[in-house]
């Protein structure tokens, strides 16, 4: 491809975009909507994943220890639990630590009350156990319950939260796949229809070019460049808008529902868009190229 031709192709592509303003706008909106759908789904899916990771890792099992146990037995017990399959970490909380955590949670008014307890501390020592994956939580609990009476008094965990989380984990996986498939189908239908309109608009134009002796590639290049430009514009608009939208929504949620922060963290906007931003723009370009090639291919075969 010669440089002079390349300049000509770009000029033609730009002219065509401005001349067929309405059509270009429709194509840009189509690309933008498809990309928006993608970005939106990705934001939700990646945040739910992130949320589940957070909740999972904060979902510990507490094991209360018999206070008659010896120092050595305690050490062996900790070693034994650490070696159980799927256990990620075990941390020991002594009876004194437990009291401190308890008094901290009560705040100022607690000091007198706690002071009275300090001499005859009735809070048991415990292990806090983290499991590597939420799906294995149940099997670890079963193994721990076998230790009751052998140095352990009680195994505690949040049964309801655990059950719900497992269900949520599975449903989110399924739903996100279904939604993305559905939306991909929808975008394809929209794009194909926009292309059909474009084809009819350009049938005459392409025929005329062929009468004066234009080669296929001479006809094709401006259309391809036009598609690329439309793809870039459409996806860039979406990425910029959704970047700000995402940022503002999180700010809004955090500032208006401060309590949410305690149990729910959103992914940082930069982390999300570092990945989905470039992917979106590449996809926009791809849609543009595929769209323009499909729309003229049929007319070049004469």
């Amino acid at each position, binding site marked *: 491809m*010669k440089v*002079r*031709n390349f300049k*000509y192709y770009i000029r033609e592509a730009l*002219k*065509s975009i401005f*001349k*067929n303003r309405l059509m270009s706008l429709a194509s840009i909106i189509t690309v933008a909507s498809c990309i928006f759908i993608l970005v939106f789904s990705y934001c939700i899916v990646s945040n739910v994943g992130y949320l589940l990771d957070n909740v999972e890792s904060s979902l510990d099992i507490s094991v209360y220890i018999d206070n008659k146990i010896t120092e050595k037995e305690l050490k062996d017990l900790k070693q034994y639990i650490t070696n159980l399959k799927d256990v990620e970490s075990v941390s020991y909380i002594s009876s004194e630590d437990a009291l401190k955590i308890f008094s901290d949670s009560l705040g100022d008014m607690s000091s007198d009350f706690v002071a009275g307890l300090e001499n005859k501390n009735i809070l048991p020592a415990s292990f806090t156990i983290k499991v590597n994956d939420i799906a294995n939580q149940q099997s670890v609990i079963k193994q721990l319950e076998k230790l009751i009476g052998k140095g352990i008094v009680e195994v505690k965990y949040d049964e309801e939260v655990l059950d719900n989380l497992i269900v949520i984990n599975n449903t989110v996986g399924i739903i996100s796949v279904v939604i993305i498939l559905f939306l991909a189908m929808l975008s394809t239908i929209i794009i194909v229809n926009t292309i059909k309109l474009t084809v009819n608009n350009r049938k*005459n*134009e392409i*025929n*005329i*070019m*062929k*009468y*004066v*002796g*234009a*080669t*296929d590639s*001479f006809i094709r290049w401006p259309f391809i460049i036009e598609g690329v430009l439309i793809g870039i514009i459409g996806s860039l608009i979406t990425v910029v808008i959704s970047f700000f939208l995402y940022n503002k929504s999180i700010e809004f949620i955090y500032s208006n529902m401060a309590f949410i922060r305690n149990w729910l963290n959103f992914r940082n906007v930069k982390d999300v868009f570092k990945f989905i931003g470039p992917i979106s723009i590449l996809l926009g370009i791809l849609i543009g190229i595929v769209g323009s090639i499909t729309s003229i291919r049929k007319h070049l*075969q*004469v």
Partner: protein
Amino acid sequence: MINIENVTKFYDNGAKGADQISVKIEQGEFVFIVGSSGSGKSSFIRMLLKEQEPTSGKIYINNVDITTLHHKEVPYFRRQLGVVFQDFKLLPNKTVYENVAFAMEVTEAPSREIRRNVPAVLAMVGLQRKSKSYPNQLSGGEQQRTALARAIVNKPSLLIADEPTGNLDPKTAWEIMHLLEDINYRGTTVVVATHAKDIVDTMQKRVITIKNGKILSDVEKGGYSNEG
């Protein structure tokens, strides 16, 4: 220049476009193709442009058999021709100047040459004042003159026109015909399919009459055949 050997054309629907046509046209001739509607004039023209393939027979243009041209060679073949149609076929998004320049741009002609030749042909067809207008701002006659300018800007040896005056009033039709005659005087072979009886009768050129796809008559300095 043009040598058509025993060409027959059947369309997919069974309609007959040409029936064993054989004809020779020499360099520098001016030829009218006449005949009633549906007789096969456009079929004849479209095969010369390699827009349609004959079902059988050969077509030589400048000693090249165009029926065997490869898809990729067709654009280069078309650059040797100028074509003009009843409906002008101008690019709606380009000005008069750009429409004419386009025919040179596809041949990758140097910009300098484009800037020199385009105004020259626009002057020849009398459109220098309209060079910045778009096709929808022009009269039919002006649009056809633009198409003519585009057809000759690459200095083709052969100009083919299918009813170039079909959409024009008699006075404008004559202007276009005179331009075609001028182009012919400069050495270009001109083939014109037309219904314009008065013009054919007055101009006294070679007239080939087609009926039902067959050549009915082929007369030097002829008139419009009433049998056609």
